[in-house]
Every structure is written in structure tokens, then in C-alpha cells.
């Protein structure tokens, strides 16, 4: 992973002292930006997680290093945290399957339609995230034909078997939330996948064929390993925001599909409990950072991301 420091101190050694200084000047805007919009908010959040829980917005909060906040928040919201991770994981897996097929088709089979298809992948971003999610409510409405079809092919029954739906409906079920997450984050999966698939040298795949590898084997031994950076980047770009998402579960879910993002939002704005809200945010952040570190290590692609 290239860091700011590498860039700053790199370069031929003969002009070193001068270069070094220029480098520091160059990172100054970035560093200030980070200080202002990352370090300070981060400390503010960390401070909120250590607030005295008896304070309130109006009477003021003191930082009393009340670490019990973390235990209480985790215990009270463990269900929502687990649910968020589960939904995000399912949505990421679905995105990976759908996105890989799409990216593969664009990279290798689209020919002159390539640019058009890429534009189509990005096109949804031209409308608001909220509007697009709201229109899913219309598509999956109880009296709509999508639900009729799903009932006819027993999709709703199948979903009920795996606990992703309750009753003969699609809207206001875990299925709808996961589908919404999948839809909203699919482009974040497709684009990095496309970027790494597009760089694959087709002659390598041809060589695999020349060496008597079946197409499937060739894919598994050549294409897939070469596209791993895209897979890792895509899954991270999907999983991380999906875990903290607070829109899909509120618009498409029911009261039993509440994810942790929505809980944090409600704690901050409705219940005015900054201490728990802060602690919960920090817990979520720690969980995601830990999960990502383990994942990147396991995937063994530290240099590739």
C-alpha cells in the first residue's frame, strides 16, 4: 500500500534535503484536510462515547471516561449489530455474484457496447439514492405484480423457509432490505471488478487453453486469481457502507429488520442519548476495521489493493 510518506520522501537522493521539505509542503493541504474532517470529528465521536450518560444535550455532557458505555451499548444493540453484519454480508455476496458476471461481460464480451454498458452501470447515480430506494417500495408493493409472480413461483414460500420473509409479501421483509442494499451498492462492486478484469491479458487465458485447461479451469486458475484485487476492493467498497447503511432498512424493512445505522441515527436525533450513540458508533467502527484487517490478511492481497 503506497502511503503519503512514501510519496513524500521518494525520489533521487542527491536533492534530498530540499525535496523533503517540498514533500512536507505538499502534504500540508491533505494533512490539514484530514485533521479538520477526520481527526477532529473522530476525537469528538470518541469523546461522545465516553460521556457521562446522565448528561443531556440541554444540560451539557462531560467527558467522564465512562467506559461502561461500550458494554451497555453493545449489550443493548447486539441484535442490530449482528443483523447489520449479516445483511451486509449477504448483500455483498449477492453483489459479488451479480457484479462479477456483469463486469466479466463488459470487459470481455461487450465489444463496442463497452462504454455504453459502463455508463448504464453509473447512470443510477444521476438520481437521488433516496428516490431510487423509495421506488423499490412501488415495485415490491403488496398489491403489485412482482409479489403475484413471486407467490406463483413459490419464491415467497422459499423465502419464508429461510426466514427472509414473513407472510406472503416481499416489502417490509429482510429480503427487501437485502435486495435494496444489493441494488444500491452494486455499482461499487462492478467498477473495481471491471477495472481489474479489463487489465487481464487475454493471451494468458488463451495460453491456458493451449495447455489443455478447460474453460472452467482456465477461469479458476487464471482469470479469477488475476481479478482478486478487484474482488477485494469491490467487497470492501460494498460491505463497509452496507454495514452502516440506515436508509434501506427504514424504507424497505419492518420493525424487526432495524440495522445498527438506523439505531445510531435514532439515538442521536430522537432519543438524544449521545453517550450510547457515540459508544455504538465506535463499536461499529472497531468491528468493521477488525473484520477488514482479517479479511485483507486472509485474502493475501495487501500489496494489490
Amino acid at each position, binding site marked *: 500500500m503506497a502511503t503519503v510518506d512514501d510519496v513524500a520522501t521518494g525520489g533521487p537522493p542527491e536533492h534530498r534535503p530540499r525535496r523533503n521539505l517540498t514533500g512536507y509542503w505538499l502534504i500540508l493541504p491533505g494533512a490539514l484536510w484530514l485533521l479538520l474532517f477526520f481527526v477532529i470529528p473522530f476525537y*469528538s465521536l470518541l469523546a461522545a462515547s465516553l460521556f457521562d450518560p446522565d448528561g*443531556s444535550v440541554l444540560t451539557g455532557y462531560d467527558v467522564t471516561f465512562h467506559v461502561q458505555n461500550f458494554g451497555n451499548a453493545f449489550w443493548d444493540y447486539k441484535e442490530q449489530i449482528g443483523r447489520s453484519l449479516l445483511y451486509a454480508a449477504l448483500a455483498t455476496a449477492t453483489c459479488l455474484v451479480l457484479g462479477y458476471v456483469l463486469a466479466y461481460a463488459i470487459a470481455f464480451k461487450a465489444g463496442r457496447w463497452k462504454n455504453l454498458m459502463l455508463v448504464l452501470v453509473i447512470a443510477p447515480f444521476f438520481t437521488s439514492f433516496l428516490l431510487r430506494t423509495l421506488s423499490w417500495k412501488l415495485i415490491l408493493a*403488496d398489491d403489485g405484480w412482482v409479489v403475484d409472480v413471486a407467490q406463483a413461483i413459490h419464491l415467497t414460500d422459499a423465502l419464508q423457509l429461510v426466514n427472509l420473509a414473513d407472510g406472503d409479501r416481499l416489502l417490509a421483509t429482510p429480503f427487501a432490505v437485502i435486495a435494496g442494499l444489493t441494488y444500491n451498492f452494486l455499482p461499487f462492486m462492478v467498477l473495481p471488478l471491471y477495472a481489474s478484469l479489463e487489465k487481464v491479458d487475454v493471451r494468458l487465458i488463451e495460453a491456458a487453453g493451449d495447455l489443455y485447461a478447460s474453460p472452467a479451469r482456465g477461469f479458476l486458475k487464471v482469470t479469477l486469481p488475476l481479478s482478486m484485487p478487484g474482488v477485494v476492493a469491490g467487497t470492501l467498497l460494498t460491505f463497509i457502507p452496507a454495514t452502516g447503511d440506515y436508509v434501506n432498512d427504514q424504507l424497505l424493512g419492518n420493525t424487526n429488520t432495524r440495522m445498527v445505522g438506523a439505531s445510531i441515527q435514532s439515538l442521536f436525533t430522537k*432519543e438524544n442519548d449521545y453517550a450510547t450513540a457515540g459508544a455504538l458508533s465506535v463499536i461499529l467502527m472497531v468491528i468493521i476495521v477488525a473484520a477488514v484487517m482479517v479479511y485483507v490478511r486472509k485474502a493475501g492481497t495487501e500489496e494489490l489493493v
Partner: protein
Amino acid sequence: MAGMNRRTVLRGGAGLGFLGVSAAVLPLFGTPDQKQDPSRLKVPDRSESDPRLIISNWPEYIDEDDDGYVSTLTQFEKDTGITVRYTADVNDNDEFFSKVRNQLGSGTSTKRDLFALTDWMAARMIQVGWIQKLDASKVPNLHANIIDSLAKPAWDPGRDYSAPWQSGLTGIAYNKAKVDEVRSFSDLVTRPDLKGRVSLLTEMRDTMGFMLLIDGADPEKFTDDEWKQAVERLTKAKKAGQFRSFTGNDYVQDLASGNVLACEAWSGDIANAGDENLVWVPPEEGIMIWADNMMVPNLATHQANAEQWINYYYEPEVAAKLADYNSYICPVKGAQEAMEKVNPDNVENELIFPTEKTLSLTHRFMALDEAKARTYEKDYTDVQRA
């Protein structure tokens, strides 16, 4: 080996340094007490020398000029020579609260002379001293004409700090094309044919008000035991899968499309939806009434103009014109007679002029201090995720 050591030491040092700096810096992020003393946050009134008035209100809450029709606001400007800057930037009580909290909490100006917030938020702001007292001699219409059911809220019994802009009722709505009449709130939370197709409001005071009424408790004065019982009853219904969602302003669409068969609803929303199948009913247990209240914040520079505005909107003719536009409950006595001239069709409109009988069934939620409010809000959100 030496390198390893050096590295370990450096890392350890950096870690300790980070912890030390954090421990020193973190307490700076505490937040101060935001109580203020309104009598010390008065500024010389500039209403005379600078005839302006800056107002924040909810969207679609005031009539507009339309060819030939002169709006109440334009008329006010003509009559008084005051230039009104009217902004519809109150979308949500909590959101508006966050918008002005830093200024009001630290005793600086919000650059506004008047804004309108719902009862509980109004109560909260008055309690912490962010609101200026109105000069009773400058708002005679308010005290003479306000309807009885809104005249004495527990949090501002003399209407010394606030004046209702419009008021509304919370009750039940159902889709009559899809389901039999729903008459009571206890039907809504228990009837088996509604299971999974009911939505409730996220407004704790509305929903819990009804839950208290089911058990015969008074939402304006209840005990902790009664509260507990109401919460338990709601939790039971929630666990049985009765509810599909807890909603904010966005429930009408689900009701109209049939995703939801019956729900807790605000009267004005159903009247404005323009869908014949949607019926609003006052629940048998009683009705929750609310109002959005105009208030003058600390350090407002045009308080006298604001008082003139309040007084103007408490003239029955003006109130009738306004109510004719937005179909919420008119808080002004005499407006019903004045409506005769404005729009005879609306004289008997129960959503604008509820009968004495309906009004006698209305309840308000009791005023809560900060700690109590948070406990109750927490209990209520706990139900929602039970």
C-alpha cells in the same frame, strides 16, 4: 535485532503518546450546559427603525398569492409596511432543534424573529430559557380569541411565550376499500385481520398517549405504573407481529397503496391526500391534539413586529382565510363565522372547526423534563425494536 528493538520502542512510544494526547484532548469535547436566562438576552427592539420580520415555519403552511387572490401575508405587509422574510425551513422538530441549538444554547442570535414548533419541542425550548416572553398588551387578539382547548397547555398555561399557528388531531385512518371500519385504538393494536398491516407514528407522545388512554389513564397526568402497563401492552402487540412499521410523515402512500390497511394518522394529512378511500376517524378512547406554536427566540431584533404578526393572525377573518387554505384546525374563535364569507363550503368542515364534542374528547401529553423525556423516548424506541 537492534532494529526490532528500536521499532518496538518507537511503536510503544507512539502508542503512549497517542493515549496521553487523547486523554488530554478528549475532555475538551464535552458540551456545556445550554440553559439561558431570557431576561438577560434581550436586545433593543429595532422594529420601528428596521421594519422587517424574519419567520421560519413548516412547508405548505400558509396561503399564497394567486391571480386575484391576495394572501394573508401580502395583506399584512400592505397594512403594516413591514417586510416579511418567510422561510419554510422547519421540516422536523428534531432537525430544526439541531439547526438552532448551537446559537440558542450559547446565547447568540439565530437571526430569526419567530418560528413555529410542535408542543413538546416548544415546551422544551421554553423550559431552557431560549424563548422571549410576549408582551400581552401587544397581542390582545391572542388572549381574547384562542380556542379553549388550546388556551392552557401545562407547559405555558398563560400563553405567555407561545401562540398556536395551526393545530391538528391525531387519530386513526383506514383504507375503506380494503378493510372494515376501525373504530378504536385497541382495535388497531389487536384486531387479527389487520395483523402485520398496521403502521404507527414514531412520535412517542402521540402513540403512547393512545396506549395510555386504552387503559383509562390520562396522558396529561399518569403514573409510572400506568406508563409501564401501556408500554407492556404495546410490546405485546409488537411481538405478536401486529405492526408493519413506525413512520414519520411518510405513511399516507403506504395506506393509499394498500400496503398498510390502517394506521395512526394526523387529520390534516388524510384531508389533504384527496383519496376517497382513506377515512380519518377519532378513536373511541379519545383523540390526541397538538399544535405548532409561534415563539420569539432570544436576541430577536424585531419582537414588536412578531407580536404584530401574531395579533394579525388571531383576527377571525385572517384566521379563516388561512384555515381555508391548509385545512388544519383553526385555533381562533370566531373564525367559523368569518369562514361564511371566505368559503361557505368549509364552515361545517369538522377538520377545520371540530365540534365542541370532539374537542372535549381531546387530550394532550404531559410536559416532561429533559430526563423524563429521554427515559420515555428510550422506552418507546425499545418497543419498536422489541
